């Protein structure tokens, strides 16, 4: 009960405020309050969590829906406590506001393995949460949205429900304790029903009661696979993504930035673009150009037609030279040694046989299905921005900076995201749209990236070199040493997003390697940061995306050296560390009938990872189809604790598997002449 007690006594206040024709309930901090983003003069549209007016109940989400089902699960937390009729629940994305800070995300920055957190470390993690509030990070990323919302949203829902009951008690002349709630209405003992919509205004004047959320045993919605409120719109073409924003008088623009990332533009001739039908303007953006036209196609054609002279890239020009630079990091200063059990050096020196492997993993692009885009309207002292992002506050700040405004002069709307995967944590596309809009005050403009521009101007998952050594004894791993070199995503991104340096050991760089639940007596993991100015970003699962691969490939090498079955070998070392982790391996082994005889022409592999608080094990079966390898089957077992929506969990796990496999099979990004060579989806 510790966390609950802390929240009610000191941290959170549940409150309400009147809005035109209704009431709004929210939760915000009492001791260091953020401005409540609810502002009555803007009507009922702006509110942290719940807006009730005469038209119904709307749940306002501070997290972006990019396919991961977060709107469904977060809405279910509120609906559960408020006894709403699920089929009538309306969900909208809230405004950019600091009240939606993500504490779970900052807590994860600690250099401690998730599975091994002690109560003390949990307290430190809590303290780090305040850091994310200090930055005002309203972020959908790091697999944190559901965990971060679990208590506040249920508290807000419970408080709103009780306030509505008190309002009804006054109206009906009945004791609130005798009332119950069902399908969006308060019900009296004599079965009289008062819909919330009729009570909203009175409820706004009630001092909101603080009550504990319901225990899991009473849940009707949470724990169920719910129909997603966004599904009908997405099946009928009605869901509005960033690219679908249409405003009166809107122009369409395309951009063309230096393909040598971060390099300057030496000069350009707009004439060939201006000669094309539909092209209206070419705008100088310093390191590239924007072309404004009557439609996106004319704008993209125009952008291609501009005759540009580019300056060089600030990094080595070829993939080979880039890997050379990464390898040099091993000679430099060590950044981290987050695991150092036993005496790895001596054990390996004394070992009869040392198993060694080097892994090289490529840069990867995010390739969201919806290319980068944003729509902006600049009116001198204000900027309105429609931008599909995982970080509305960061977008506001970057866009404001780009056009010389304050962040509070920027209004951010968050439409649906056609995929995020970490790419839309960045704000480059909003800043560019803002700069184009500044050149045409009063005229809304949609800045659309071509697929080519998107793929060649990403913030990439970094390329990585890992050097592994190990030894086995008596069927177990006796020693495992991992050294990883790569440029640091965290350092780049933290500087970019907060303006502050990120000193100390970089956990993201070695996550998935140092924090795995294997009992290996001599176990050491070291990180080396390469100095490389290629834009890097958080790519779905971040460090785990490369380190999970590296760790598990090498565990297979050790299993092979030990002459053991790869699942048996893993279990023997995982069991003593974590029963939960061992269980997912056992489950996947059972599902895949691992011990049953294999069909001829097939091969199977297994891997385990503890990533973002969830242990996962997968088995993949490959089939040899006359020389071509086909991924024939896959099995996944995971244990995230409480599955708040099993069907969404299932969809996310499948999605992650396919995303990972397509990266492994065809996602490689390479450089030549300082430019990314892959320009569109593989044909």
């Amino acid at each position, binding site marked *: 009960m510790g966390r609950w007690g802390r929240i009610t006594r000191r941290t959170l206040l549940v409150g309400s405020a009147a809005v035109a024709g209704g009431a709004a309930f929210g939760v915000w901090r009492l001791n260091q309050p953020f401005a409540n983003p609810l502002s009555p003069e803007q009507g009922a549209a702006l509110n942290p969590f719940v807006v009730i007016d005469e038209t119904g109940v709307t749940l306002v989400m501070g997290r972006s829906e990019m396919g991961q089902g977060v709107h469904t699960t977060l809405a279910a937390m509120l609906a559960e406590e408020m006894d709403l009729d699920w089929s009538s629940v309306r969900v909208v994305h809230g405004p950019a506001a600091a009240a939606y800070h993500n504490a779970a995300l900052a807590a994860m920055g600690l250099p401690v393995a998730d599975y091994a957190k002690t109560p003390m470390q949990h307290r430190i993690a809590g303290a780090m949460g305040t850091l994310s509030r200090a930055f005002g990070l309203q972020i959908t990323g790091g697999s944190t949205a559901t965990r971060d919302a679990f208590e506040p949203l249920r508290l807000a829902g419970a408080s709103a429900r009780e306030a509505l009951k008190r309002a009804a008690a006054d109206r009906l002349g009945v004791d609130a304790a005798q009332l119950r709630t069902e399908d969006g209405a308060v019900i009296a003992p004599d079965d009289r029903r008062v819909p919330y919509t009729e009570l909203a205004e009175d409820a706004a004047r009630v001092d909101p009661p603080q009550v504990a959320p319901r225990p899991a045993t009473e849940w009707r919605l949470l724990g169920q696979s719910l129909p997603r409120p*966004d*599904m009908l719109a997405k099946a009928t073409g009605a869901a509005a993504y960033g690219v679908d924003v249409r405003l009166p008088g809107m122009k369409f623009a395309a951009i063309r930035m230096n393909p040598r990332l971060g390099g300057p533009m030496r000069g350009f001739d707009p004439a060939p673009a201006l000669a094309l039908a539909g092209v209206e303007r070419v705008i100088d953006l310093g390191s590239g150009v924007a072309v404004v036209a009557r439609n*996106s196609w004319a704008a993209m054609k125009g952008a291609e037609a501009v005759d540009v002279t580019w300056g060089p890239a600030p990094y080595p020009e070829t993939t080979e030279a880039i890997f050379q630079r990464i390898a040099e990091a091993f000679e430099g200063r060590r950044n981290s040694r987050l695991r150092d059990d036993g005496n790895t050096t001596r054990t390996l020196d004394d070992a009869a046989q040392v198993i060694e492997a080097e892994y090289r993993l490529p840069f990867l692009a995010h390739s969201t*299905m919806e290319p980068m885009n944003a729509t902006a309207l600049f009116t001198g002292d204000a900027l309105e921005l429609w931008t599909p992002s995982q970080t509305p506050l960061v977008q506001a700040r970057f866009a404001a900076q780009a056009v010389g405004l304050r962040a509070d002069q920027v209004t951010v709307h968050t439409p649906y995201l056609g995929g995020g995967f970490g790419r839309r944590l960045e704000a480059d596309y909003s800043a560019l749209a803002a700069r184009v809009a500044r050149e045409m005050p009063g005229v809304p403009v949609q800045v659309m990236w071509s697929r080519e521009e998107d793929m060649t101007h990403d913030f990439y998952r970094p390329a990585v070199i890992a050097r592994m050594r190990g030894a086995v004894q008596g069927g177990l791993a006796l020693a495992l040493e991992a050294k990883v070199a790569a440029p640091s995503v965290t350092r780049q991104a933290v500087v970019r997003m907060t303006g502050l340096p990120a000193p100390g050991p970089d956990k993201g760089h070695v996550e998935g390697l140092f924090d795995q639940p294997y009992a290996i007596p001599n176990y050491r993991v070291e990180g080396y940061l390469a100095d490389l100015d290629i834009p890097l970003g958080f790519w779905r699962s971040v460090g785990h995306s490369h380190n999970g691969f590296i760790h598990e490939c090498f565990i297979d090498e050790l299993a092979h050296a030990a002459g053991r079955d790869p699942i048996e070998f893993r279990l023997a070392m995982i069991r003593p560390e974590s029963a939960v982790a061992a269980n997912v391996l056992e489950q996947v082994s059972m599902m895949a009938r691992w011990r049953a005889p294999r069909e001829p022409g097939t091969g199977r592999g297994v891997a385990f990872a503890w990533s973002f608080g969830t242990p996962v094990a997968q088995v993949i079966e490959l089939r040899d189809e006359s020389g071509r390898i086909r991924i024939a089957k896959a099995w996944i077992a995971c244990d995230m604790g409480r599955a708040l929506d099993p069907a969404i969990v299932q969809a996310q796990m499948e999605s992650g598997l396919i995303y990972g496999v397509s990266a492994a099979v065809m996602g490689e990004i390479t450089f030549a002449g300082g430019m990314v060579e892959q320009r569109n989806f593989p044909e």
Partner: protein
Amino acid sequence: MELTVNGDRYETDVPEETPLLWVLRDELGLTGTKFGCGVAACGACTVHIDGEAVRSCQIALGDVWGDVTTIEGLGRPDALHALQAAWVRHQVAQCGYCQPGQIMQAAALLAENPAPDDAQIDDWMAGNLCRCGTYSRIRAAIHDAANSLAEEA
């Protein structure tokens, strides 16, 4: 230029070489059809011309040979096409961005082959990318829609 989309007549003065995709989205305001690649590599822009599934990013306005149907015209929220209903039942969409193209591609399949097997579905749908990886539910929903169409018939 005149154009029939979802049964409605439209007039546009945009140059004839403009791809149908951009005419629909930017000139006519029918934004259900999506842009993903512009080079026939993703299927997000799939629409029907006279019932045939085509990549609208590859068809110049001047070459449109018949009536165009987009996701907005396939069914409506209150009168869903069997595939759209199956999409909702199977909760197919994640980000949803690729789904209009997936559904239009699948609709052309069912028009031609009312009871496709897994291999035929995989083959027919192979050019439609989904970065969220919804493929298994897409396949299940197509089977389901095929069944419900068969029952209606």
